[in-house]
């Protein structure tokens, strides 16, 4: 079955081609069917492969399709690798992807047909590239997917291309990703020249015998790529802007799958990382810092999607923290759980926006809990999950990460905890402002309010269920669980075992702490944020947070403006009046000297003969005297 893995990306590709070429002719319903059908197909296939892989005694397989780039010095095949890690991601991508396709069918229903088709074509293309990313058996194939998803996110963010802010957001996303990609690319070159190959197996085989410095360099460059793709400091600012895209897109690309590409990549190359402690430390620190920074910003955002976006950034930070402290599986595990509840939250938000007729500002909402029941309940579950309500998927994964951090470095643990607390705070704030209190919107909005159609609510429910139970595969021993997940991944990813005598005790502490904390937070937020007479204005420190620490402005000031100025300078000064002036100057010089030499021709015989005589004189002197000396 795993031999047929190439079919998994192939289906979405076909879907993309059909929808792309037939966007004029195909009817919306057909488009929707094709779009989601293909993804479903690959989901089923992935499931089959999953069971094959899960079966004991399975060893990672490489399915090479054809020679991609082959020179005398190195050879890069177009090959896929099937192992536990990739299969896991296959499931996440196709599964969540399928749900979101279904959701989109009705979310996008009032786009006219060609654009509708375009949308699904893009989505399919995205799934295709994402699958390439996780399936590739070497870094170049991974890079292909890597840039492919970047492209798709660009296309989807700018999906409503009439609006130039969206286009700018799309451009920003692409360019920032490109910056990361450059790092990735350089890492690839380094590997080619270091190991003579970029195939995972070869690279990992040669890694142990390589100097730590080199590995550190490579891993850091790879991490630069990751920061771009997974929106970490310093390249995270594109993600919040990316919310310009349709909400399902945000759910799929900017929450569930693409942004976790970086996590996948590092988990995939854990061999290199675990040999480069410095890089690990860097990853951890950057992750932690991102988690905290994003969380603080999220506290005072009023756009429902922006809040979710920053929470995504923050959660990604947690994942990197996990990777950085060596708990690769925990990171990946959090990817999975996060995929569930963050997709859920986004889709829920989508449903809310849908109900509000496109309104995204939570200060204009409130009291929706009665109006849109299902959405509210599922959303509530999502909130609880992300803020780590005991035994929800979020709780388990975060708990693992924090424990890992604890064993690595107490400080990380405490900071992480603060981050987790802030998560709970802003999520509850979001919840209250949206669903509780009284409605603050306009009247026609109030009339327009209605529950979304089943095509949208179904995915919500499914994801809600997953968010609740999804974590149980990794339930700690302390609560009578068993780490099935780690077991599954063990062949592909190194699982670090910390033998801690009173591990169980800590678990109980955390559990207790969480319950108490959540309770306090619940009451506190309810008190502070659920004020009906709230005017969207902040002041003082809040203002800074509301303005995202002014990071965008700073970047603009230190990068964009100077670059632009430089370009103008080069164009006007160097090019026009510099080089080109010189070139033309030569011509002008010729012209000028011609005009001057002309005057020698005075028209008077006497002068001519005089000149001749003088020349004769000179010749005599050269010939008779100068040469003899």
């Amino acid at each position: 079955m795993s031999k047929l893995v190439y079919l998994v990306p192939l289906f979405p590709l076909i879907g993309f081609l059909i929808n792309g070429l037939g966007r004029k002719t195909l009817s919306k319903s057909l488009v929707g069917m094709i779009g989601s059908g293909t993804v479903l197909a690959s989901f089923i296939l992935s499931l089959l492969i999953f069971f094959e892989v899960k079966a004991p005694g399975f060893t990672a397989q490489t399915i090479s399709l054809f020679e991609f780039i082959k020179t005398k010095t190195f050879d890069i095949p177009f090959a896929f690798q099937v192992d536990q890690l990739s299969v896991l991601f296959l499931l996440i991508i196709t599964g969540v992807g399928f749900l979101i396709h279904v959701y989109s069918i009705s979310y996008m229903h009032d786009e006219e047909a060609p654009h509708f088709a375009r949308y699904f074509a893009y989505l399919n293309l995205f799934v295709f590239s994402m699958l390439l990313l996780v399936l590739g058996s070497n870094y170049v194939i991974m890079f292909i997917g890597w840039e492919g998803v970047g492209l798709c996110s660009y296309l989807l963010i700018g999906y409503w291309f009439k609006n130039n802010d969206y286009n700018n957001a799309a451009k920003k996303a692409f360019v920032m990703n490109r910056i990361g990609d450059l790092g990735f690319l350089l890492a690839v070159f380094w590997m080619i020249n270091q190991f003579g190959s970029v195939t995972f197996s070869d690279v990992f085989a040669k890694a142990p015998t390589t100097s730590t410095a080199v590995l550190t360099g490579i891993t850091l460059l790879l991490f630069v790529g990751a920061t771009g793709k997974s929106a970490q400091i310093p390249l995270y600012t594109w993600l919040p802007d990316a919310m310009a895209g349709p909400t399902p897109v945000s759910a799929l690309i900017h929450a569930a799958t693409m942004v976790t590409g970086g996590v996948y990549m590092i988990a995939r190359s854990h061999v290199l990382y675990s040999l480069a402690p410095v890089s690990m430390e860097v990853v951890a620190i950057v992750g932690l810092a991102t988690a905290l920074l994003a969380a603080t910003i999220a506290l005072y955002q009023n756009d429902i999607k922006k809040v979710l976006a920053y929470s995504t950034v923050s959660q990604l930070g947690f994942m990197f923290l996990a990777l950085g402290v060596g708990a690769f599986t925990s990171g990946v595990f959090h990817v999975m759980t996060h995929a569930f509840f963050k997709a859920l939250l986004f889709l829920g938000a989508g449903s809310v926006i849908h109900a509000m007729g496109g309104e995204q500002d939570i200060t204009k909402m409130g009291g929706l809990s009665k109006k849109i029941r299902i959405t509210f309940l599922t959303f509530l579950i999502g909130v609880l999950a992300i803020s780590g309500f005991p035994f929800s998927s979020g709780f388990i994964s975060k708990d693992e990460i924090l424990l890992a951090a604890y064993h690595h470095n107490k400080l990380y643990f405490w900071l992480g905890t603060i981050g987790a607390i802030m998560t709970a705070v802003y999520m509850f704030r979001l919840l209250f402002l949206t669903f509780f209190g009284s409605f603050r919107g306009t009247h026609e909005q109030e009339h327009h309010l209605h529950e979304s159609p089943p095509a949208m609510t179904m995915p919500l429910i499914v994801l809600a269920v997953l968010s609740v139970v999804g974590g149980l595969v990794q339930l700690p021993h302390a609560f009578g669980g068993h780490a099935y997940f780690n077991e599954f991944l063990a062949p592909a990813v190194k699982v670090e075992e910390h033998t801690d005598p009173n591990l169980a005790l800590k678990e109980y502490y955390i559990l207790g702490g969480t319950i108490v904390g959540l309770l306090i937070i619940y009451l506190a937020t309810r008190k502070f944020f659920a004020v009906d007479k709230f005017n969207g204005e902040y002041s003082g420190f809040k203002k800074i947070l509301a303005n995202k620490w002014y990071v965008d402005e700073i970047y603009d000031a230190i990068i964009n403006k100077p670059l632009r100025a430089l370009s103008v300078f080069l164009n006007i000064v160097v090019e026009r009046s510099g080089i080109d002036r010189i070139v033309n100057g030569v011509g002008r010089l010729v012209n000028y000297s011609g005009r001057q030499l002309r005057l020698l021709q005075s028209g008077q015989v006497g002068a001519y003969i005089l000149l001749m005589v003088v020349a004769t004189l000179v010749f005599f002197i050269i010939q008779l005297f100068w040469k003899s000396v």
Partner: protein
Amino acid sequence: MGAIILSAVWGVVMMYSGILFKNKATPKYIATAGVMLLLVTNWLEYAGLPIFNVDTKGMLEFNSFGLVFNTVIFICTLFYFLLSGPDMEDVGDHVAEYFALIFFVLCGIAIVSSFKTLLMLFLGIEILSIPLYILAGSDKRNLKSNEASLKYFLMGAFSTGLMLMGIAFLYGATGTFYTEAMNLGFGKLNSMMSIGIVLLMISMAFKVSAAPFHFWTPDVYDGSPTVFTSFMATIVKAAAFIGFIRLFENAFGKMHEQWQLLMAVIAAATLVIGNLTAVFQQSVKRMLAYSSIAQAGFMVLSIFALNSVAKEGLVLYAAAYSIATIGIFAVLIKMKDYSFEGFNGLAKHQPLLALLNTIFLLSLAGIPLTAGFFAKYYMLLAAIKNGHMFWLVIVAVLCAAVSVYYYFRVIQAMYFKEGNDPGLKVSETFKTMLVLAAVIIILLGIHPDWLLTWLYN
């Protein structure tokens, strides 16, 4: 020998034809016939069956080089007669005499291309120059023409004086007028020989209008009736060059290194001055005058290098340059307005003429597939082969690039600018001859060996 005698005789014939036939057109035909006869006799002589066997007492020698060169000259003359002959009638009513003078010039050329003693060189040069003084001034009422002929005459006479002084010193040093006999002297030049060589160099440079002895050229070419400018600028100049290289190869070949520097200076000066000054000209006629100086600069390279390549190249250059320039002048003569603007939009009204003109100009600019390229090619090759003074080559190349500038101004005017119909009246023969000339240019540009192989048999 045949060429010398026949051209002299034909000159006389032309004189009488003027008296016998009142019809202005007749002399033209007789002249054409004469040139053809010249070609035939010259050819027979080349083929080894000369008509006249005259004991020249070793004063003249007719080797294949000289004879091939004469052939080239005569062919050019033929083209010249057929293209511009009819236009002589507009200059004055002494058409027959003009032709006679031209034949005398040809006689002089034949001498210059075969002399072995300085006496013959001197006579040849004089026979070649004196008729030109007349032709320059043949448009009597036109002050420009007067001025041209006066300037030409005075400076020509002056340069003759210099030349004779040179000859005198050489005789004093070597005791002979025979070039071979002089050439025996190896080693260091004594000052008398140096003076002689320098003076001869100067006077010859004057004849070929090489800087800094070129000052007469623009004015004389500009002032003379365009018909005769065409003749002077092409055929006569080429002939002067053959004399130049004959003299310096046979007489001073062995002291090559000792006067090479001066030749390099002349070449460089000619190239630079000729090209740069041509850039700014407003009248095409005058531009062509300067361009002829510039081209002379390239030909001087052959005398600077003075090796077998150089000699081949000189013949090729003479052919390429003369034919192309004759063609351009032939068109120019038809124009009313000699300024660049005069050529505006010619391509629209006279597409064929414009095209042919373009070919000629490209050849002068030395673009591949035209004879001009191989001409320049040989000159550069000779100069590089010569070994030292590489800077001269670079100067030459850069000047060639500059030359493109003013040649293409004409092309641009013809093709890319709008202008009204100059209303040229051109006969069919004119067109055919022009086409023929262009064809020759192209053929020589594709396969110069077709000409050069004749040098070796």
